[in-house]
Structures are given as C-alpha cells and as structure tokens.
C-alpha cells in the first residue's frame, strides 16, 4: 500500500512539528509518558500550527489528511512515515548542528532520533498510534470538518 503525495506532504509537515516539540524533550521524559499512559495530544500544542480552513489550500489539506489514519495489516503507513520523517529530519539537523559546532543541538537532535525509535518500537507503537488518532481527530475539528 502506498501513500499519495499529499498525505506524504502532510506527514512531513507533522514530522517537522513533532521535531520542534521533541527538541526540548528527552527520551526518558517521553518514556515516562508512555509509562504513565498519558495523552500525547494533550501535551502537544497546536496553537502555533496554522491550518488553512477554506479555499484551495483547505481542500488540499483535507485531501492530505484524508487517508492518514488508515491501517494496513495492523500498521499505519502514515503514522510510520511521520516517525521516519522525524528521525530523518533530526538526523539532518544533527549534521547541521555538528557542522555549526553546536554540541547541545547535536545531543538534542540525537535524543529526538531516539524518541522516534522509541515510539516506533513494537511495544510502544500501539500507544503511539492511539495518541496519533486522537491528534488526528483534533486536527479535523480545527479544519471544521
């Protein structure tokens, strides 16, 4: 099963937002949330995410989000792609920070990579999917759909 380009773009945007959010979080902190089974959607803030609600851009956004929560043999390709994007983006930023001589930045980006790997772990993935579904519902409400 493949994802269409719009969904991939939406996943990339979501991954960038997650990288920003996890930049100031440690892997241990996220692991604690998992341990406490906390609601990730409550922790994330969408106030600074500007989603076009009307017009062509709104239609594109809706089309992009259309197939996000679809499952394929138990796995969710869109949610997995988000994690992969988070890991890849963090990897690129890590190289940038390394080149810039920003050791703290490198460590933080490495932590983001570990968080992505943690959320993609077989044991943690169900909790991650569950929280992503809640996030999806909130985004849809924000779209007014």
């Amino acid at each position, binding site marked *: 099963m493949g994802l269409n380009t719009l969904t991939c773009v939406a996943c990339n945007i979501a991954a960038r937002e997650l990288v920003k959010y996890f930049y100031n979080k440690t892997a241990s902190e996220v692991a604690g949330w998992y341990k406490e089974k906390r609601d990730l959607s409550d922790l994330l803030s969408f106030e600074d995410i500007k989603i076009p609600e009307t017009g062509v851009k709104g239609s594109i956004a809706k089309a992009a989000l259309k197939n996000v929560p679809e499952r394929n043999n138990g796995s969710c390709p869109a949610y*997995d792609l988000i994690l992969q994007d988070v890991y890849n983006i963090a990897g690129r930023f890590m190289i940038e920070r390394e080149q810039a001589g920003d050791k703290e930045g490198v460590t933080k980006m490495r932590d983001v990579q*570990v968080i992505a790997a943690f959320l*993609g*772990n077989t*044991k*943690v993935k169900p909790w991650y999917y569950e929280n992503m579904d809640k996030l999806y519902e909130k985004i849809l409400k924000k779209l007014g759909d």
Partner: protein
Amino acid sequence: MPRVVAPIQATMEDLGDTVQETVRKANKVLDAAAAAKVLEGLGIGSGGSSELKQISEAFSGLATGLKGIGELQAAILGQVKETLGNGGKGSNLTDLIGLILLTKMLEPKQEKKEELSPTMERLLNRMEEEIRELKENRSPSPVDQHIHNLTTQLLSQHMTTLMDPFAGLTKLAEAKDKLKGVLVETSNVPPEYSEGALRLRALEKEEKALAVEESKFMAELNHKERLWSQQIPAIINQAGTVLANVLGTYGLIPAGPLQFDQQASTVAEQMATTMGNEGQ
C-alpha cells in the same frame, strides 16, 4: 300369423231367448272339420305326422274356425239390418240388443292364457320351451364370434397400455439388449491386434513422447532457474527502483519499514522494555 281366438264363453243370462237360439246356431256353424283338425294337431286325434305338421294343421283348423265365426258375424249383422229395415216389426228391442251384443262377443278378442283350454296351454308351453331352448342352444355366428374376439383383444391391449405406460419402452430396451449380442462383430483378429490393444499401444507411445517432452522442458527450466538465481538480487533491486519510480510518477510512495540506526533502536528497545515492565 292368424290369431288364436278363445272359445266363446258369453254370459247367456244377459241374452234373450232369441239370442240363445242364435248362439246355438253359431255353435253349429263352427266347422266340425276344423275342430277335428285342431284336435288332431294337438295330438288328441289319430295322427302319425310330425309335431310341426300337427301344429300347422291345428292352426289351419283354427283359421277355418275363425272364418266360420266371421260368417256367423256377417249373418247376425244381416239379421240386425233386416230387423231395422222392417221397422222393428215382429221383433222387440230386447232381441235387437241381444243381436248387437252377440256381434260384439263374436269379435276377435285378445287371447288370455288363463282362458285357454288345458290342451292348448300345454301346447303353447311346449312351444315356448322349444323356442327358449332354440335360443339358448343357438351358437353365435362366426362373424359375431370374430368381432367379439377382436373387441376383447383390443380392450385387453388398451387396458395393458393403461396399466403400464412404459411397457413399450421396456420392450424396446429388452430388444436393444438382445440386438447388442447379435450385432457384436465376431472376427478372428488376434488379441494383440484388437482395437483395444492397438489403442493402448498408441497411448503408451504418446505417453513416452510426452515424458521425453517433459524431461526436455524440465532441463530447460533448471537451466533458466540457475540463471535467474544468479541474477535475481540485481533484478529485484532494479524492479524495486522501477516500481518506486512508477509509484512516484502517480504520486504514490511505497510505505516501507521503519529504519533507525542500530544504536537508537537499541536504546529505544531498552527504554520500552524498562517502562513496560514498570508500567505493569
């Protein structure tokens, strides 16, 4: 056939003296010869002829008697006419009525059996018996017999058809079975050259040819398989790239498994295990 008339048995009390005299005359008028013949026919008199002859003679006598009665009637009517023509002179009304009554009595009557004489009754009984015997013993005509037989046969066939509508089919099947045995060709062909043996040999040859073809095909497949096994990894990679390009052209990106570096995956696994255990 002349009717047999009963002997006149009038009630004489109803008649006057003149009428009684007239009746006496009438009795005399009856043909004595006819009476004799009747008696003779009935076997009472002397006679040596056959019964039928006797019967015919008896009827002849009766006819003569009737003729006499007719003549008597005519005589009486003539007397009545004369009496009326004379204007009733020398006679009275009683005589006239008597004559008329006598005329009526002399009219032929329907015979009643109980009024017959015992001799006549015996004769009639015998005749009836003979007629009945003749009817009973009469054998049917050949034509009637033939028609009867045909009708019976047709009815029997019809009933058989009604009782078993598939009888015809059964018979046909039986006949077919019989013909099968008859129509089988009996030839002196040796068993090894019989049709079955020849066909079997042809099939065996065909089977051998197919086996040869199969072995050739299998050898070719094995050769191709060896070639493919050497080239498959490169082909798969190439096919994957082509597929990814095609999907990309149509805006589709294949979803692959998550790929993290080994270190990050190990750390994540340790954390997940630890938190999972603690969470439980």
